[in-house]
């Protein structure tokens, strides 16, 4: 083990090879690696790591099982608190959460909790030795009905927690596949869809009734849910509204929002067109605007679709890039170029309305802004043009406004976030919310933490005298 927290000890496919397909990049640690790593954990009496995990996994306990070679028991321990361990083990920003506060990190390398989590979950799935079916509690036939809206990590977690508490849970999803960003956003090579499918199946096996093609607010209103006998509602509709740059030329052909591009690629499997009927067009020279996880994913998908040159254009410096360091490194290895301290100002098209050029303005860093990051300041007169034929705008998403629009009783912040109290309840009594719909674009695990807290609060609310 080395002392660098960002050193990747997990085996992965060579860059030259992996950019040719959408297969998973990181391969998972070996049994020997896992046991050795688990044995490093000093089993703290007051484990800081657990405080760093939004769903409060009993980290020392599951690690101890791995150290003892009881991998199924480790998986079971994980699932007590986290219904989606194979997913979190892959996409959780561990370096900013549980691993950041691990005591061993004070002097040396923290325990690679995320890798171990992935290891145990993958073991259970692939070896099929474990107790596949969860403790499905016999639900009384008159169990109260609960509605969960949105099947992203927030909704999936809330639904599974409510089902475990004995409620009859309906999980409504507007798209034709469950999973939210896990299905339509994060690409196959980072999170295989088969894993999402199996983890969703696991949640269904707890008794959750998944109903696809239901857009709450349109197909059925919140009021109609209550009229149909649902006792409480959780809104986990996510932050799906794409932000655009608002520069001239942004509507030209060849300019995508990252959401459109990733939906075409991941949800609709556009990379298998025409067998899959939704096309996705990629040019030779692609510019991706932004430097978060979404931007890295879009850039790496572009490469896999056959682009010759993919460039990340970001208005701050590498230090401020919000993406996980691991993913930035992988993007670099794959040959993605980074143009930092640059912001697009205009897009130009050819005679057929396709993107041809992009004008950028150079930036320098000024005073810190409200986020604590130094604000990019334009350098006057520094405009120049670069040749591109595809532009993917990945500068952020805001909470989905559809439900608050459909039911104005739901109060939102100016930027769109649904306002909730400390129990996660919105301005409509009995209607709770969490995840990206409340926080703005955040993380899988924070959405799961919210879903879990909401389930506890919904249980209490339904049982409180009114």
């Amino acid at each position, binding site marked *: 083990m080395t002392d660098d927290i960002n050193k990747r000890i997990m085996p992965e496919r060579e860059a030259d090879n992996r950019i040719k397909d959408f297969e998973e990049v990181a391969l998972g640690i070996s049994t020997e690696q896992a046991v050795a790593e688990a044995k490093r954990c000093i089993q703290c009496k007051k484990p800081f790591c657990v405080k760093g995990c939004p769903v409060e996994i009993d980290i020392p306990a599951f690690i101890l099982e791995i150290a003892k070679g009881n991998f199924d028991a480790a998986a079971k321990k994980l699932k007590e608190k986290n219904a989606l361990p194979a997913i979190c083990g892959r996409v959780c920003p561990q370096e900013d959460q549980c691993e950041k506060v691990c005591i061993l990190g004070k002097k040396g390398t923290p325990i690679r909790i995320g890798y171990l989590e992935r290891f145990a979950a993958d073991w259970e799935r692939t070896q099929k030795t474990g107790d596949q079916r969860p403790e499905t509690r016999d639900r009384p036939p008159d169990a109260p009905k609960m509605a969960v809206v949105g099947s992203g990590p927030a909704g999936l977690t809330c639904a599974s927690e409510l089902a475990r508490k004995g409620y009859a849970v309906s999980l409504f999803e507007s798209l034709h596949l469950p999973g939210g960003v896990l299905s339509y956003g994060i690409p196959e090579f980072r999170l295989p869809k088969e894993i999402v499918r199996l983890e969703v199946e696991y949640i269904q096996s707890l008794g959750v009734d998944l109903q696809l093609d239901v857009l709450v607010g349109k*197909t*059925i209103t919140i009021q109609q849910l209550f009229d149909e006998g649902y006792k409480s509602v959780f809104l986990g509709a996510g932050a*799906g509204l794409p932000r655009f740059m608002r520069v001239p030329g*942004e509507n030209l052909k060849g300019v995508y929002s990252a959401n*459109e591009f990733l939906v075409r690629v991941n949800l*609709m499997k556009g990379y298998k067109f025409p*067998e899959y009927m*939704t096309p996705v067009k990629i040019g030779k020279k692609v510019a991706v605007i932004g430097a978060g996880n979404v931007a890295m994913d879009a850039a790496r998908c572009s490469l896999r679709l056959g682009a010759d040159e993919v460039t990340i254009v970001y208005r701050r410096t590498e230090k401020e890039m919000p993406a996980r360091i691991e993913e930035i490194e992988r993007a670099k290895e794959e040959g993605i170029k980074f143009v930092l301290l640059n912001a697009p100002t205009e897009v130009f098209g050819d005679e057929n309305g396709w993107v041809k050029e992009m004008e950028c303005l150079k930036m320098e860093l000024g005073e810190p802004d409200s986020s604590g990051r130094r604000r990019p300041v334009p350098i006057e007169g520094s405009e120049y043009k670069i040749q591109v034929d595809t532009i993917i705008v990945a500068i952020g998403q805001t909470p989905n406004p559809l439900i608050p629009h459909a039911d104005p009783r739901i109060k939102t912040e100016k930027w769109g976030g649904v306002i909730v109290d400390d129990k996660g309840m919105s301005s409509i009594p009995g209607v709770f919310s969490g995840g990206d719909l409340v926080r703005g674009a955040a993380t899988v695990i924070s959405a799961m933490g919210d879903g879990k807290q909401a389930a506890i609060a919904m249980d209490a609310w339904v049982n409180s005298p009114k």
Partner: protein
Amino acid sequence: MPKLLHKEKLADNITLIKVAAPRIAKNAQPGQFVVLRVSDKGERVPLTIAETDPAKGEVTIIFQKVGATTKVLDTMKVGDELVNLLGPLGAPAHIKKLGTVVVIGGGVGIAEILPAIKAYRAVGNKVITIIGARCTDLLILKDKIEKESDELHIITDDGSCGRKGFVSDILKEMIEGNVKMDLVFAVGPVPMMEVISNITKPLNLKTIVSLNPIMLDATGMCGVCRVIVGGHTKFGCVDGPEFDGHLVDFVDLKNRLSTYKTEEKQAEEHVCKILGVKI
């Protein structure tokens, strides 16, 4: 999965289907649409809700065979199931009593104007309908539309049915003849909606167009359906599909609609090969 309850060929290229969709039937309002998929590898395709029967839980869709998805849809039989059906989508139409409403449908648009005709008439408007296309496309739909309208004008490009010319010719004549009009509502190919909006704009005659940008999720999440209206970017699937024709940037819309021309052809060829039919 939503079952096909009824299927009827209205014309050479136009088919009417009724699908079981109780929740959609209950909440749908004029101006709204559904998105459907015909296979688990299929595209998400938007189609207007032509009629609903909330009591029976049925939704009627009228579609024109133009490409891959609509061709597959046309091969489906009563009892078959759609893979997905999502709706009702889009903002409901603002139907008000205004006096006389001229409803214009061209090409594919003819399949979409029926709910508007009914809704405007139901609140007490006089509805004058103008439809234009190839003759064979109209034969049966014509009767349905005639029944629902106060007045019907038919015009075809080649004069094979009704008069020869374009729907806009009739609108112009009506304007020259000082026919009193309070609203124009037009659905059809973009150039048609553009021409009509250009005719009515100098007269300040309010004109609503139902736009058909490319759509993907149709829930406001991807932005592919963005259109410029009055200088602002709007999402066709949630802010529309109906917009003030005088404010729409048609040049932008036409450009964006042509994004996947090559791929649409490819998909159609692919599907026709599987179905064993000629394009």
